[in-house]
């Protein structure tokens, strides 16, 4: 089968600023694809183009086998969209909203009503009655929004930062709902600023920065890209961090230091050699360590490494 989403060389400018600067993207059918990037990386612009809300200046994109510009209507028949801001009518109740969206999907009055009841039940909103959406909690609103994007069981579902602004409980609710969808064969494109979210939900991840994809792969593949394992050393005395960096048998270029946590962290190639080498060097120099550990890089480090912002690297590590 062909890919559910194909984007090639998408460009979009707002005034002088390029929101998208040649974005390429491929998402296989039935997978969850994470698009990871900082604010202003172009994630929302990409979603708006792929969901036919915005025309690209250059490049082309196909969703569910149809061109998003020339066959916008065909695309709209096959997609669901959960935008960054709740896209429901705040004055109406949840049931009124879903009923309205069902009618606009041309289910007819009776099926629209039935589908509304079904979705309210499934997303735990059956007891909301006539209450207007404006009185819902953030998590409830998000779930209703998600229900609204699933009226016709879309082939491709777009989730644009689905948990931004939610508390941990609301986030867990949305995650659970997204997981339950994937089994049904729906392709999901998920944008997020949270690495944890991409790691939890996505089969593959594209890292986007300044309007283009800078890396693409599974979470594990991306972790390998930053040079594999790291060694973390926590010293008893932060004052000795400088001395430790100078004498440890590691590549000084990749070392990062966090004075508050008395931590230095460095990439390593040979795990065991690095571990024994570090311990020996510290002993010989008489520097006391509280903890020495080997670990895989976190997605945070991968992300910051790939987007290449040194300031952010220093803050995060």
């Amino acid at each position, binding site marked *: 089968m062909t890919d559910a989403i194909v984007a090639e060389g998408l460009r979009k400018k707002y005034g002088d600023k390029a929101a998208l600067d040649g974005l390429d993207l491929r998402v296989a059918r039935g997978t969850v694809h994470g698009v990871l990037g900082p604010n202003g990386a172009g994630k929302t612009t990409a979603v708006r183009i792929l969901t*036919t809300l915005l025309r690209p200046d250059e490049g082309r994109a196909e969703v569910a086998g149809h061109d998003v510009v020339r066959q916008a*209507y065909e695309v709209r028949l096959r997609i669901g969209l959960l935008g960054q801001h709740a896209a429901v009518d705040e004055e*109406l109740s949840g049931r009124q909203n879903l009923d309205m969206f069902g009618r*606009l999907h041309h289910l007819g009055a009776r099926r629209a009503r039935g589908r509304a009841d079904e979705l309210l039940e499934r997303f735990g909103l059956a007891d909301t009655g006539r209450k207007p959406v404006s009185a819902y909690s953030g998590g409830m609103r998000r779930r209703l929004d998600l229900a609204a*994007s699933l009226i016709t069981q879309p082939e491709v579902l777009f989730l644009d930062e689905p948990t931004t602004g939610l508390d941990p409980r609301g986030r867990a609710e949305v995650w659970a709902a997204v997981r339950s969808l994937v089994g049904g064969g729906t392709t999901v494109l998920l944008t997020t600023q949270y690495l944890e979210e991409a790691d939890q939900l996505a089969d593959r991840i594209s890292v986007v920065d300044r309007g283009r994809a800078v890396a693409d792969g599974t979470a594990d593949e991306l972790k390998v890209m930053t040079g594999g394992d790291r060694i973390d050393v926590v010293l008893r005395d932060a004052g000795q961090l400088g001395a430790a960096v100078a004498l440890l048998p590691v590549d000084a270029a990749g070392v990062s230091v966090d004075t508050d946590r008395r931590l230095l962290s460095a990439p390593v190639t040979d795990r065991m050699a690095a571990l024994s080498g570090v311990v020996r060097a510290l002993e010989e120099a008489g520097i006391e360590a509280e903890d020495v550990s080997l670990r895989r890089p976190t997605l945070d480090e991968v992300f910051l490494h790939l987007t290449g912002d040194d300031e952010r690297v220093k803050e995060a590590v």
Partner: protein
Amino acid sequence: MSAYALTDSWTMTRRELAHWTRQPVRVLVGLVFPVMLLLMFGYLVGGGRGVEGEYVDYLVPGMLALTMAFGLESTMLAVTQDLNKGVIDRFRSMPMANGAVLVGRSVADMLQSALSLMVMTAVAFALGWRAHGGLTGFLGAIGLLLLFRFAMLWIGIHLAMVAGKPELVQAVQILVWPVGFLSNAFAAPGSMPDWLGSVVEWNPLSQTATAVRDLFGAQGAESGHVGAAVLWPVALLVVFFPLAVRRFGALSK
């Protein structure tokens, strides 16, 4: 997809009507406000400078036309609020007829205006106003008023598309007053300085008000303005309807 144009437009109209049942106070205020203006100008402000015959017969058509003109601002407000909500994105990402959102808005606003005309004429009747032009004249007058409202509606939609921000609605809400008052709604242009009188006579609102007075058979009403009261709104529609529709299509730019 145009096969669903009617269904979708009806769904969007139902949405607006559901808003009415959700916010009955807002609907009530919308109906009471023009009645208040009518009472204010009928009793408090008095006036009717240069007006022949009964002032109430002069004032009521003027107030009805003015209410239709003020509809511009309520349409603009509603469309602006809608555009600034996420729900419009959902509509646009759905396989629905393109213009249904705007059609729903128009139908709901026209219904509201028709209702408003009913309430106002009922109050006016209680105040002693009478339509002397028979049923045909009455229906013709209501038709002209609604046609005028329809033109205001599309100007309102267009302005909302152009301005797009709630702050700019306020500016229009203020501007609507002088433009509404620079008409013959309350006073005859003959009583004004020459230059002002000419501006006032050119105001499309004045044309509608004069034609409505004529059709209501008000004493001393000028005749021969029905043509202008049809042409003005039609001309405005010819300009603003396509502009507004194009603007709506261009949301994807």
